[in-house]
């Protein structure tokens, strides 16, 4: 019961617009994740065409579409981060709340989130290096296979990743 009350208190303290953005983001992210899991589990076997042990680079969607979609998604993520930071500033001014320095647990959780993201990245990088060094298929090849299997889902996944990059790794506030 105490936990429920505490969660209510936390929810009440958050700015409504900001909460809405976070909830929409969470729903979109979970929906996206579910779609990717469903697409992966329901995919037919043998969609990746091999040529001398390497996946073929068959491009149904022009390469530039992937690049520019990613760039646009990255910028959109950054714009959303800007809107979020403006909302935080307004909420702070209204509620006389102070900055992140006065909330050590929040700051610690941010650092933990960064550590988790870079922990995953670290494992991916060492896997890529290991597979390339010892002649196994690197992660890049599986990405190529996913593009062959379903270019549109792969495009969506790339856009989603780039959006998250812009949203959480490019969070500079341009105007104070």
């Amino acid at each position: 019961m105490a936990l429920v009350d505490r969660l209510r208190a936390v929810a009440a303290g958050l700015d409504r617009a900001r909460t809405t953005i976070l909830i929409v983001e969470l729903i979109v992210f979970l929906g996206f994740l579910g779609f990717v899991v469903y697409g992966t589990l329901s995919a037919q076997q043998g969609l990746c065409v091999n040529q001398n042990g390497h996946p073929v680079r068959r491009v149904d969607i022009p390469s530039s579409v992937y690049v520019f979609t990613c760039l646009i998604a990255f910028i959109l993520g950054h714009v959303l981060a800007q809107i979020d930071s403006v909302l935080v500033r307004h909420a702070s001014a209204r509620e006389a709340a102070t900055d992140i320095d006065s909330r050590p647990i929040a700051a610690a959780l941010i650092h933990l989130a960064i550590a988790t993201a870079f922990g995953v990245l670290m494992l991916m990088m060492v896997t890529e290096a290991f597979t390339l060094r010892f002649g196994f298929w690197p992660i890049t090849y599986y990405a190529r296979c996913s593009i062959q299997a379903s270019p549109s889902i792969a495009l969506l996944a790339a856009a989603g990743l780039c959006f998250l990059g812009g949203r959480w790794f490019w969070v500079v506030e341009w105007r104070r």
Partner: protein
Amino acid sequence: MTTVSTPQTIHRVDRGIGWGFAAVVVAAWIVLLGLHFIGRFTLDVAFFLAAFVLAAAIFLVSLYAAARLFEHHRLHRADRMPNLLPVPTWLATYARYLTPVGFVAGIIFGHYFWH
């Protein structure tokens, strides 16, 4: 024995850790470059190992920062976000462009020239 930890000593330790990791990363990159030039690693293996070293350093530094903040909160000690790698203001001004420039350069280079 009582450990005296003033804000000054804490921030000195922070900076030591930040610069220490930065030095380790640069040293590892130089070693990897050398290993590539003597033919021990191909360029792509050396590149991904260099990225691994950087990611590992940020991972460990973030864990340290989180642990320090949790510990200070537990001890009811006033604390603020650790500034582990203080850089001059003029450099910090340009650092805000680092993420977008790195992303755009990386995605174009990675997509059109890598593999």
